[in-house]
């Protein structure tokens, strides 16, 4: 009996350690958040639709059913058709694909620029820090949506231009976050202790800084995606997004707004899917935030 305990002992604490690791505990907290889990499920579904949407769509987004223009939901057209006869259900499936492409792409672009500039400012300090932070102030002085409008004019319409137009002006927030994290750590006792051990800059960044900022970065990314989803739809609302017949939530909503009388299904389905999606992303982001740095919680 005693022998058995002695043999299993080294593994038991290892398992215990995994259970007490900050990541595992964050996941535990996340799991308890009902909203966050529901949001995550929808986000996953959204992603799957984004990938396979074009294959399961009953109609091509360019196929206009002239015999059933602005008809309500039916077996043929689940979510009805719009004024030109496009199938709303198919349009939504395609919209999800493009919305995801644009929002994820834009978030990646912003994040990449932000991380590079933020790291550079935080680590180099001095004049570089001043220049980057001035640029951040500049970007914050005006809503990045205006920069996106200007960029759309310059780049022309399309998916790739939209990624750049939304992504490039969005870097400032990430840069500021990364810089503040780097600064807080660089002057913190943990990094000082690592330096005292003789760790190289690279070792400190990899083993000490990165694991401790990854949570905050994931949270900021999670908040960034719904913001960029909104922005890409918002560009279409003002007529600067994808050109019809390229389907997008913005176009559908704008059209629904213009044709609201008599054709409410044009609004129900796109607005519903879009709103649920944004909510889900926000629930996920909020859940992650609570999980990684529990403060206002229980």
């Amino acid at each position: 009996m005693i022998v058995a305990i002695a043999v299993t002992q080294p593994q038991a604490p290892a398992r215990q350690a995994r259970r007490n690791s900050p990541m595992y505990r964050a996941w535990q907290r996340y799991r308890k958040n009902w909203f966050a889990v529901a949001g995550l499920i929808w986000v996953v579904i959204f992603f799957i639709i984004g990938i396979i949407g074009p294959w399961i769509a009953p109609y091509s987004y360019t196929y206009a059913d002239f015999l059933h223009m602005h008809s309500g939901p039916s077996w043929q057209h689940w979510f009805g058709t719009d004024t030109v006869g496009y199938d709303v259900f198919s349009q939504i499936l395609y919209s999800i694909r493009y919305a995801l492409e644009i929002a994820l792409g834009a978030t990646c672009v912003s994040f990449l620029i932000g991380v590079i500039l933020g790291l550079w400012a935080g680590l180099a300090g001095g004049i570089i820090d001043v220049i980057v932070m001035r640029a951040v102030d500049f970007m914050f002085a005006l809503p990045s949506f205006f920069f996106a409008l200007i960029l759309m004019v310059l780049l022309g319409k399309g998916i790739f231009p939209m990624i750049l137009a939304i992504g490039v002006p969005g870097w400032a927030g990430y840069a500021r976050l990364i810089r503040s994290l780097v600064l807080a750590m660089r002057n913190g006792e943990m990094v000082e202790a690592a330096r005292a051990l003789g760790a190289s800059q690279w070792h400190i960044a990899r083993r000490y800084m990165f694991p401790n900022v990854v949570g905050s970065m994931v949270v900021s990314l999670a908040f960034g995606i719904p913001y960029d989803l909104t922005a890409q739809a918002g560009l279409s609302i003002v007529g600067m997004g994808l050109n019809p017949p390229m389907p997008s939530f913005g176009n559908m909503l704008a059209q629904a707004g213009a044709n609201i009388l008599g054709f409410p299904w044009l609004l129900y389905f796109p607005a519903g899917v879009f709103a649920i999606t944004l909510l889900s992303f926000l629930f996920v982001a909020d859940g992650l935030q609570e999980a990684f740095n529990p403060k206002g919680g229980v």
Partner: protein
Amino acid sequence: MFYVKFLAKRFVAIVITLAAVIAISYIMMYYSPGGFMNTTQLASALAPLAAQDPAAYQKLMEQFQSRYGLNLPLWRQVLQYEWHTFTFNFGNSMQNPTLSIVSQLKGALPISVFLAFGSVVVSVVIGIPMGVIAALKRNSWVDYLVTTLSMFGQAIPSFVLAVIFVLIFGVVWQNVLPVTGWGTPADAVLPVLSLAAGNIGVVARYMRGSLIETMRQDFIRTAKAKGVKYWALVIRHGVRNSLTALITVIGPQFAFTVVGTVWVENIFAIPGLGKVISTAFTNFDFPMAITAVFILGGTIMLTNLVVDLIYSWMDPRVKLQ
């Protein structure tokens, strides 16, 4: 004296930022496809004239180019444009060449400013009490209701809400509230609400978190130990200290709301600055677009300056710089 220096510094910063925005916009427009100021469009429109009377066509084009300073080198064009903008000499728009930009924007600006400020005021007035109640009744059904509603408000963009309002008040409850146009006070209700929903969510959630955090501070315990009555404690010590933190989110929120006006004015067909901006951009009316961005940007930055002043007044630890 200190404030004079501070304000002077901030004004300089605002002017520099605006100048940079204008320069960047102008240069980007200059290189945008289709040619700057849409000369190609004009050229094709005047193509018949060019065939008939090349001299007259040439003269017209030159007139056009010199009117907008297009015959100068780029850097001179930028400088000239900056000068015109900062002397509020915006010139005429391209869409309506006979009307000056100023005359077109004169009516639009107050509408957008009213919408943006109105929605921020509404959100503060509604959001703060919501957040306070949620924080004080933490983990009760009231709290869950407030938090969930705030999440909805925050997640659903103003344009989606606006379209939903159009459906509700344009189809279901017709004639309760107007869904298009501008003129009567009732016209403002739905746009302001669509814009405020998100802000209410942000304000309520932020207030809740901030107040919960504040109520855990040591000085709250000190106030309790003094025997301060509950509501005095909550308001004088709790809310008062949470407000200083809340003010920091109002600035960015205002900027976000201004973007919202661009969307919402489109949906409600309100002739505000946002509508002007989107029309200008879609029609490649660059002088108009740059001017509108200039004015909105200036408004946002001035608002931020005021926010900073209030912040320093509310929190003596904050040093203005």
